[in-house]
């Protein structure tokens, strides 16, 4: 081979580094930016309705808003002792999400930021990188470790951490970035505190709804919650059930691998809450309350529709509040897409038809978790029309979360060019 060709060819070659937890989000998600450029850059609005705070790096900031002196002192002691997320009821030795380091973004974020010392700024900068790379206009933020707090036997911990998190979000994070939006974490084990938080934080313009972290043993139809649901209905903002894993549940303790628990657990809690919600006819009592069911995938929905329709016709006397079939109420609720079961398109197409995906499905990434879905998980579905894709990727969410249909994300080509210009690898 002539030398000049070797030299000129080498000039065009750039080496790419191994991806680790330290990798900049923009490099991690480089392929997503290319997908945005090629597949949906002309879409009017992209909303990611479920992205996550990974608490460990930012926990000291949240604890700064802790209003209970005893818990604050306890947490600071744990932090000094090397516990990364004090007061959280998760066993560190049971954390298998990152697949033994195979999926590094689950263990981060450890990347460098431009203002490491400025409170809230690191989180905002990292999330903005993910929004720009995936071509997202708005991202709804959820916690991660806090998803388990409903099982914490110390009720006051859930209450005070919920308050600290909401204050961190509304006072520190959201004012720094208009494209980030959030939900009030409802400390559902104490309804008075839930109502207090709706009153206190619900009016914030970047607070777009209320979330019940679904991992808990609390019947959602209990009479104590009816005033809370009325209050939420009056705000016009949705009530969002966010699923989660929980290995300590007695049934799940029979499962010997994380994959087994994860596959069932994320669906299990939403199955239970949805069943109580429907059988007790809460959609009849709160006809204007929008509910959203998050992070259970979609396959569980037609399963439950069929089960409940089948039984309700035989046992009407046990669900006398219903005026229609369970599936008809469920078709009026909203669902987030991730983790989208994409291994059998025939089944998925049927599922989407059954849940009326064109109007009821909301795209979610779950970034930076190990099973995240980029927007291309929707745009590459061969059975959806272009309009259905636009609706699922943003226009449905604009209706549910009362967002303006106005592009605020940068052009994908600019995102790619900017990163290429200052990339160091």
């Amino acid at each position, binding site marked *: *081979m002539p030398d000049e*060709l070797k030299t000129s*060819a*080498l000039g065009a070659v*750039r080496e*790419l580094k191994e991806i680790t937890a330290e990798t900049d989000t923009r490099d991690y998600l480089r392929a997503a930016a*290319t*997908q945005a450029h090629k597949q949906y850059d002309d879409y009017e609005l992209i909303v990611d309705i479920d992205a996550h705070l990974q608490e460990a790096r930012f926990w000291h900031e949240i604890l700064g808003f802790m209003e209970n002196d005893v818990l604050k002192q306890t947490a600071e002691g744990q932090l000094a002792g090397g516990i990364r997320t004090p007061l959280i009821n998760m066993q560190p030795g049971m954390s298998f999400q990152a697949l033994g380091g195979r999926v590094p973004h689950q263990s981060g974020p450890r990347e460098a930021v431009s203002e490491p010392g400025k409170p809230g700024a690191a989180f905002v900068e990292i999330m903005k990188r993910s929004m720009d790379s995936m071509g997202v206009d708005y991202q709804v933020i959820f916690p991660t470790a806090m998803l388990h707090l409903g099982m914490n036997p110390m009720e006051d911990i859930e209450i005070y951490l919920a308050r600290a998190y909401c204050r961190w979000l509304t006072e520190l994070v959201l004012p720094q970035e208009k494209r980030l939006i959030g939900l009030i974490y409802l400390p559902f084990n104490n309804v008075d505190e839930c109502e207090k938080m709706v009153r206190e934080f619900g009016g914030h313009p970047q607070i777009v709804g209320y979330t019940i972290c679904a991992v808990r043993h609390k019947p959602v139809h209990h009479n104590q919650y009816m005033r809370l649901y009325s209050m939420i209905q009056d705000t016009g903002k949705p009530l969002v059930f966010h699923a989660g894993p929980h290995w300590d549940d007695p049934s799940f303790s029979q499962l010997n691998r994380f994959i087994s628990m994860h596959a069932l657990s994320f669906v299990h809690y939403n199955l239970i809450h949805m069943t109580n919600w429907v059988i007790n006819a809460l959609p009849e009592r709160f006809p204007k309350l929008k509910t959203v069911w998050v992070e259970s995938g979609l396959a569980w929905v037609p399963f439950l529709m069929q089960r409940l329709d089948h039984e309700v016709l035989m046992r009407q006397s046990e669900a006398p509040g219903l005026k229609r079939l369970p599936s008809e109420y469920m078709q009026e609720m909203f669902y987030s897409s991730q983790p989208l079961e994409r291994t059998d398109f025939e089944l998925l197409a049927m599922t989407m038809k059954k849940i009326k995906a064109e109007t009821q499905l909301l795209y979610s990434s779950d970034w930076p978790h190990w099973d995240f879905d980029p927007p291309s998980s929707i745009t590459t579905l061969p059975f959806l029309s272009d309009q259905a894709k636009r609706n699922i990727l943003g226009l449905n969410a604009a209706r549910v979360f009362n967002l303006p249909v106005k592009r605020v994300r940068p052009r994908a080509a600019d995102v790619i060019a900017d990163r290429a210009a200052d990339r160091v690898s």
Partner: protein
Amino acid sequence: MKDVNVGAASSFTDPGRKVFDCGGTEVGVFLLDGEFYAWENRCPHLDGPACQGKIVPLFTEAVNEDLTSRGREFSKTQTNVVCPWHGFEFDIRTGVHPTDARVRLKGVKLRVEDGDVWLSVRA
């Protein structure tokens, strides 16, 4: 197609890997037990950067003759690269996913000439 020189064969460690962006086509070049392999850095799952992930031994279910299990063990023969987006694994020698052989990386032609590694990539 265009031939691209990605450097001296001696610059690779064994086992080792380098990933190159060759004017838009990204290729992972692996050296394993003295043999080179090249795969497109594009995961069949959702186009993630499959060749830029961790290199790990395949895990196997260690089943005894009486069909009881000793749990999981490292394979002594197979080494995989893991896509860092969601964990799909691929045999570095064949590009094939351990569970479903239909899920595989796309091969790239590679040759070693005069001590240099050359790839044949789309122009």
